[in-house]
């Protein structure tokens, strides 16, 4: 076990500002504070070498948790350890064993060429020359840093800068790396490049990663486990497969029919709904546990000639979106929101 968080809680006191131009002046004289729980009783444990997705909607408390684990924020109550060190109690010792990439900030030196940022970090972390050279070579190759390593950071594109930030965060071979929305604003190619890099470092070096992101494709491609928080509380901690199995029971069947008069098509299977039809294409949604896919296909095939059939499980994104909106409650509501509402539902019995 490399990270342990035990009932971590962080409260923020924020000034309730009065509105309008006069309000700004009134605020100077009468102060009215409100206490907000950014993180509330969050506990989890991570084993070395895990790659965990830490997800939740905006303002859920993800970044706050990360800042407590990196020693930047002191929790209001509860505690955590990173490889045996309490981060805020011994911030510098913790700093030596962690790496951080903030998608919204950069740790590179704005006016210096990328390579000089690396040299500075090498001095800050006391990285042995041989280790530094080896890592620099490897990261340059993996992230394709060659073409811009001598360019001042302020002239880099976002994608280039992020690649530089990743190399910078790994140069001292940290045991744990925190990634706070590392793919935000990147194009598909850059995202893919970064994902491959994370997977590679995780596999080859056994580095532990905690990844917060709003791009659930990051999670699907990288993480076996997710921790889901909302309003500062932990909602789910477990495998991606389990959450899909439990909350993503709905399937969509898309069929292209060979029909002359497509508007007259009627399908009657209890538990299955036609959610959209457009010409010969019909989309049917059904609950995996209530309706057997083969029965549905057979029924269709009895009446119509099928040119093409696909059955898809909902993307993780649809499941998570549903949990954000409706809570964990009953799994059967999952994916309703994205798929069912738009259609002129047709149930014939």
């Amino acid at each position, binding site marked *: 076990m490399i990270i342990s968080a035990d009932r971590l809680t962080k409260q923020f006191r924020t000034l309730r500002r009065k509105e309008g131009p006069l309000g700004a002046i009134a605020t100077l004289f009468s102060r009215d504070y409100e206490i907000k729980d950014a993180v509330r009783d969050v506990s989890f444990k991570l084993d070395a070498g895990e790659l965990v997705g830490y997800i939740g909607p905006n303002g859920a408390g993800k970044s706050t948790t990360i800042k407590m684990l990196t020693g930047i924020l002191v929790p209001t109550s509860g505690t955590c350890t990173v490889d045996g060190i309490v981060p805020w109690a011994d911030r510098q010792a913790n700093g030596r064993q962690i790496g951080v990439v903030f998608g919204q900030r950069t740790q590179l030196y704005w006016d210096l060429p990328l390579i000089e940022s690396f040299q500075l970090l090498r001095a*800050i972390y006391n990285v042995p020359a041989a280790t530094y050279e080896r890592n620099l070579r490897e990261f340059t190759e993996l992230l394709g840093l060659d073409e811009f390593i001598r360019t001042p950071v302020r002239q880099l594109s976002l994608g280039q800068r992020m690649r530089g930030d990743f190399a910078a965060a790994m140069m001292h071979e940290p045991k744990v790396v925190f990634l706070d929305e590392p793919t935000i604003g990147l194009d598909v190619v850059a995202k893919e490049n970064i994902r491959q890099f994370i997977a590679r470092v995780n596999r080859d070096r056994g580095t532990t990663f905690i990844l917060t992101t709003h791009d659930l494709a990051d999670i699907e491609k990288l993480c076996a486990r997710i921790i889901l928080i909302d309003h500062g509380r932990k909602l789910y901690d477990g495998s991606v497969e389990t959450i899909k199995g439990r909350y993503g029971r709905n399937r969509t069947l898309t069929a292209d029919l060979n029909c002359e008069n497509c508007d007259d098509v009627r399908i009657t299977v209890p538990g299955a709904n036609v959610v959209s039809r457009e010409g010969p294409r019909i989309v049917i949604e059904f609950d995996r546990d209530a309706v057997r896919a083969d029965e549905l296909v057979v029924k269709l095939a009895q009446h119509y000639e099928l040119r093409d059939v696909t059955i898809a499980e909902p993307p993780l994104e649809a499941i998570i979106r549903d949990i954000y909106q409706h809570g964990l409650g009953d799994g059967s509501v999952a994916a309703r929101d994205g798929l069912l509402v738009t259609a002129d539902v047709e149930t014939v019995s």
Partner: protein
Amino acid sequence: MFTHIGSIALRVYLYYALWSALYANNGPQQSFSFKDIITYSVLALLVGLIYNVDGPYVVREKIREGNIAIDLMRPISVPLYVFADTVGQAGFALVQIAVALPIAIGLLALTGTHISAPASPLIALAFLVSVALGFLVNFFLDLLMATITFWTMEIFGFQLMVQFITSLLAGAVVPLQFFPSPVTAIAQASPFAAIYNAPLSIYLGKYQGPELLSTLALQAVWVVVFAVGALALWRVGERRVVVQGG
């Protein structure tokens, strides 16, 4: 850098014009001859180049914008890091001075004015030590103010006020000896005098023997006071940091 040096030349000329007009009408002030006051002004300008580097001001912005998180996640002492950065910038200021000084001397020579050299090697040495102490007082004062940003998030107005008080009470513009004597006494006892007035007065030989030593000792006391204050406040501030912007 070149515009910087240009502006120094301009300000040297401005001081020359100002003091020559004042001295022409009123004669020498206190114990300052015309040569003394010109020397004082030019040195104040040059020493100011070393003092007024960005250093702790950057911390203020980092706290305001939340980028302090980047420094705090590293295995470093942030005040020490800022100090190293400030010393580095001061080193660059020395290069600027090396270029600006001959220009200032040459410019003044055209008007027939000359700058005094230090009276003895010992005075020169005492001056350098005093500038170093003044640099430290100034640094820790700046750090102290920047640290307050942890609580207030906004400090610019306050900093500006302290800056004006500093330049007045420190003797960055006018030697403290020019004030009415009670004001002079207060100003010289204030920590601000340790920044400009002490080293410049030492250079001009205004302090001798025990007085010189006690001036240096007082500077050292202010260094310790502000260092302890700034670092203690930093420790508390670091604990209550609120990182801005997610």
